[in-house]
């Protein structure tokens, strides 16, 4: 689907809550253990498309969780160390991603009516209403309104 400002995706509530922020879209699944550094909130997996990119304070949009069962504990550590993402939107539900979102305690949505990784872009401003089960595209990356700064 082609997304424009105002486009709304609908999904299943994983963790309720509402946040507005910038999307960070990972084209690949994410590893917790061995894949992120909780001290800095950064993806560290070698050869990952987002290697070296920080997710702290952004809404992490990703296809799903992969790798070790330590996934959730690593994202819980991000919360305890103050480096957690602002929210999570993921394509495929697994126990790793679901428990990870729960212990990160951020609004989270999954199983959407269109693939969020295809529809959204890094830098998009989005409103995630995980309670109602929606993600709304507020502004496209690089298309900020006047007065909103760079």
């Amino acid at each position, binding site marked *: 689907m082609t997304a424009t400002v105002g486009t709304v995706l609908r999904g*299943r*509530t*994983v*963790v309720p809550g509402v946040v507005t922020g910038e999307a960070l879209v990972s084209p690949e699944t994410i590893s917790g253990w*061995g894949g992120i550094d*909780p001290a800095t909130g950064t993806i560290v*997996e*070698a050869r990952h498309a987002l290697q070296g990119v920080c997710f702290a304070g952004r809404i992490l949009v990703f296809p799903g969780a*992969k*790798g*070790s*069962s*330590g*996934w*959730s*504990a690593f994202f*819980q*550590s991000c919360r*305890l*160390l103050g480096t957690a993402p602002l929210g999570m939107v993921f394509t*495929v*539900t*697994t*126990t*790793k991603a*679901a*428990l*990870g*979102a*729960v*212990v990160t305690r951020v609004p*989270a949505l999954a199983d959407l009516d269109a693939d969020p990784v295809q529809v959204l872009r890094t830098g998009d401003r989005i409103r995630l209403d995980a309670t109602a089960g929606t993600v709304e595209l507020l502004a496209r990356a690089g298309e900020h309104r006047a007065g909103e700064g760079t």
Partner: protein
Amino acid sequence: MLTDDDRRMLDGAEGPAVAAAMDLLVRYAEALDAERFCSVRNVAGTATQPSPLKARLVAEGGWDRAFSVINLDSDETHEIPPMAVPTCQLQQGFGADAAAVAPYPAQFVELQADAETFYGRRGVSILATCTPYQVGNLPVRGEHCAWMESSAVVYANSVLGARTNCEGTASTGAASLTGRVPCWGNHHDAHRRGTHLVRVDTPVGGFLDWGLLGYFTGDVVQEARPVVTGDLALPDLTDLKHFGAAAASSGGVEVYHVPGVTPEAPTADAAFGGTIPADAVVYGAAERAATYARLNDQGTSTDVDFVLLGCPHASLDQIRDVARLLDGRRLHDGTSLWIMAPRALAAVAERSGYTATIEAAGAKVLTDSCPAMSRLAPPGTRVFATDSAKQAHYLPAILGIEAWFGTTEECVRAAVTGRWSGELR
């Protein structure tokens, strides 16, 4: 839907720690859209492994605080009661037995020893291995469990026919105090049946080949459920341990079936629940060679500093085989060889004389942990060799070192000569 007993625990009838555990499980069940909980009587989790964050929490409020925050996902510090159901500790950090060998911080060794005392008193069996099924935790077919550690989860589901999802630190912690886990995914018959047919057209037999086949299969099917048929020699425990660990590294396989071998697959028909897919994924000589090449594309220097065996933790057969291969030989000066094993099996290896033979060659049998879990190798390691597809997959990324993958015999030869000379035969 909560039962009366679930509700009582959530409402605090069994104390605040149990209530916190149920609160986490309810949030987790909602995140999965699970309608109810399964009763579990077998939990494999992790509470003892040291980390800087855990050290800080223990300093703030003891192990009660560390378990409350990490294993129950609670903000409050609760007094932790005895485990409600049988619970074991999986692999962890290195212990005092590795002090002179592995460069692991002394304060972590001390912290972990303290944790073992605390949790042991509450009924946690300190198996300290990624292979609890080798040392006394052997669930029966159909038993609902709450296990973490991807290689143990895939073994429990596939080889034993027990039922567990790939749980995490908090869900196993909460399950240990409540005997509950969301009834979702692998707990249901429909989610255990095969999804992909893998047809093996090249002979597969022995430890190396089962690992290669697992690494190929996980890469192709990712989280799905493969049914593996074809030119297969009868695997033993170590072969299936390697196959599953590899498939859970290149992909996220939690359930597989080998018709005629694994318990939920008396036939391929039964493994699929009636309908065998028309299209098969084919594993032939070309796929075997490509998988071997992929696992070996992380090495350029043939000067091997370090050989790591026993991932997942070695069986007694593996330890005995390594002792035979090392008998009367000496490791190359500057090359180390570690074989990781459950401590219970290390005790038998010592009693049987295997350890004396291994140590006489200059190699070590180590327990409790592994280089990937504890993020360490012998000082100065640049190139390592292993017979484990899982360790070859993870360790180069974790430690920034080069890797070679081959047979156990090739790895031992590399430790003795200091040079890698493996090739696919």
